[in-house]
């Protein structure tokens, strides 16, 4: 009986938890990030990037005189949790939502922010995200459709590869990227000799690598999340593979190098963002980030940081806190580092929320990511 009384007291207590509709005071930014599960590395970097930017922005007086109040919640890398948290962010009156980073999660949670007309920045790279006709979704990095042709060009022009073995993770990110990659290499006459699907969170890559190795390709293309990439590189090394190993963004990222150790040496990847980019703003950011969190940021750290500064820049441009006006202003916008140093690199957004900027080819040398080439933004040639 007492339990019933306790229960009812508890439920009523929940109802009385204050809910804030603050129109003035701090402006709320909600982070939906992968702080556990298979996306931990991505989510943690993204979150720390946003946090660093928020700290700096607040120290410099906030946005339009209002302090930023950032609250991060853990999606556990699960789409339905991300969706529930998106509902909560809407309830809490968030001005902008940051994340999730995982494509599978944002594809499910974005409908909630769209319904509430709240701009939503994502770290997701799956092509499908910006093809939903959602005017409130914005990327913080390249889509796979932009990145993969650059990888394909590298395979055919630089490596002169005739055949490739693909190892990818079977989720929205991995499968989506692999599909785009297949389309990108088709016109180059590169043959796919092995096409191997692996599980998110897979621990043992011995079978996958052996199968890929047996197909005797010119190049290995590895497209998985961070931990899986490290395990795969270790297994490739263990089985004595000496062919080039190529990836996109993840493969040469900081956490992968840390986890894979020696095995990462020689891996090549196209990256949209890297803390090793030969740009003074990025170098300064990387230093500040390491002072604050004691680890080197990967591309997701840059995504979170630059996105937060884009929020500041665009909000100041429109002069008010208005989600709809913000979204309208974002479409077709061009922002330059000269004017807004926090955005780290010149960037432009199109009508779908996709962005364009310079990118880099990187290679792991002696346990460090090195930029071997800087590729121009797509729009710059026109």
């Amino acid at each position, binding site marked *: 009986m007492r339990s019933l009384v306790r229960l009812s007291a508890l439920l009523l207590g929940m109802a009385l938890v204050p809910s804030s509709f603050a129109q003035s005071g701090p402006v709320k930014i909600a982070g939906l990030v992968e702080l556990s599960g298979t996306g931990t590395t991505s989510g943690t970097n993204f979150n720390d990037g946003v946090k660093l930017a928020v700290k700096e922005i607040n120290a410099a007086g906030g946005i339009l005189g209002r302090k930023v109040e950032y609250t991060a919640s853990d999606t556990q890398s699960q789409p339905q949790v991300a969706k529930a948290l998106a509902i909560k962010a809407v309830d809490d009156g968030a001005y902008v939502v940051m994340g999730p980073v995982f494509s599978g999660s944002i594809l499910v949670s974005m409908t909630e922010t769209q319904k509430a007309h709240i701009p939503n920045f994502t770290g997701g790279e799956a092509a499908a995200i910006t093809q939903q006709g959602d005017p409130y979704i914005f990327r913080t990095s390249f889509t796979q459709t932009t990145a993969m042709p650059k990888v394909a060009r590298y395979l055919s022009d630089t490596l002169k590869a005739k055949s490739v073995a693909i190892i990818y993770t079977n989720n929205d990110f991995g499968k989506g990227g692999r599909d785009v990659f297949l389309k990108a290499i088709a016109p180059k006459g590169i043959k796919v000799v092995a096409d191997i699907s692996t599980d*998110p969170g897979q621990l043992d890559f011995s079978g996958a690598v052996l199968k890929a190795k047996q197909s005797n390709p010119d190049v290995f293309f590895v497209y998985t999340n961070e931990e899986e990439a490290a395990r795969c590189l270790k297994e490739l090394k263990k089985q004595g593979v000496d062919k080039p190993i190529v990836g996109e963004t993840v493969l040469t990222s900081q956490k992968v190098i840390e986890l894979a150790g020696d095995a990462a040496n020689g891996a090549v990847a196209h990256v949209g963002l890297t803390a090793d980019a030969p740009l003074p703003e990025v170098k300064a950011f990387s230093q500040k980030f390491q002072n604050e969190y004691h680890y080197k940021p990967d591309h997701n750290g840059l995504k979170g940081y630059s996105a937060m500064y884009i929020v500041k820049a665009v909000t100041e441009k429109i002069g008010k806190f208005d989600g709809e006006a913000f979204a309208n202003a974002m479409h077709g916008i061009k922002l330059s580092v000269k004017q807004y140093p926090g955005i780290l690199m010149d960037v432009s957004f199109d009508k779908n929320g996709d962005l364009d900027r310079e990118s880099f080819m990187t290679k792991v040398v002696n346990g460090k990511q090195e930029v071997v080439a800087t590729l121009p933004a797509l729009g710059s040639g026109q």
Partner: protein
Amino acid sequence: MNASSSTVIARPRRPAVPRSRTRLALAAIVVIAFALLPLGLKSYGTYLCSLFCVYLMATFGLNLTIGYAGQMSLGQAAFLGIGAYIAAIGMKAGLPFFAMLPLAALACFAIGLALGFPALRVQHHYLAFATLGFNVLVFLVLRNEEAITGGTFGIRGIPRPSLFGLSLERDLPYFWFTLASTLLLIALLGWLLRSPWGRAFAALRDNPIRAESLGVNITAYTLLAFAIGACCAGIAGAYFASLVGFIDPAPFNFTASLLMLLGVIVGGAGRFLGPVVGTVIIVLLPEWLRFMQNWYLAAFGVAVIALMVWLPGGLLSLPERLASRRIGALP
């Protein structure tokens, strides 16, 4: 090596379902208060309340398995998943919710029978092993049979049903619908346990040896309790799919089963309202104690251990325990 009887702990003689007028009245007040609660909440609060109801259906079923039949089931989330996928796949194909609901329930009942029959034939704790294995297997099938289940991509855009022409698309009506269904299910289970036929469950809980000597077919009743428990999870799954609108294999993994099991035990296995307390602890309380973040589950783990040492009957056995201590009837 004392493989003593593996039924769950405390077995005081109690009626299968507590009954008294004041209790009923109080229960009614609590239910009405809960039903009106979301009027003061926003979408997320309403969502949580609906989610609470969904898990309540599953844990009430689980309580029948654990509390009354004395069986550890580590596979309740698998049945939740089977129910959710059956409902989602059917509704995406255009079939109505009310056609998929009984299908989900029946499928889980049948699978529960098929799984429980061989496992219960041998030894008591083998059902725990078998259900654990079954849960992992179901998770793998959900993730890998992409053509049917959508694999890791999941199934998006699952509709909500309409009832007598009224759309339950909005959060509040859907919550009331879920709450009403949950109450109906709980009432059915209560009726079942009180019926002459169902009294055998209470006999089974209180003393399986005595029940056997009185002519209760232990294996048959245990199996039935397990299958009905699975069936409840299947029903809960259908509501889950419709509530969230998206499903992927993640919420149906072994960890979810584990949490439900521990929830029921913490609440008080074999007590009719034990699952209510347990589900509050696993679904609502973490939200309330958000400041504890990850420490919440760690503390929950410690609480489970402490409870096993000092209060193996669960939280709901606390009043009795205190009372008996006052009288000095128990050491």
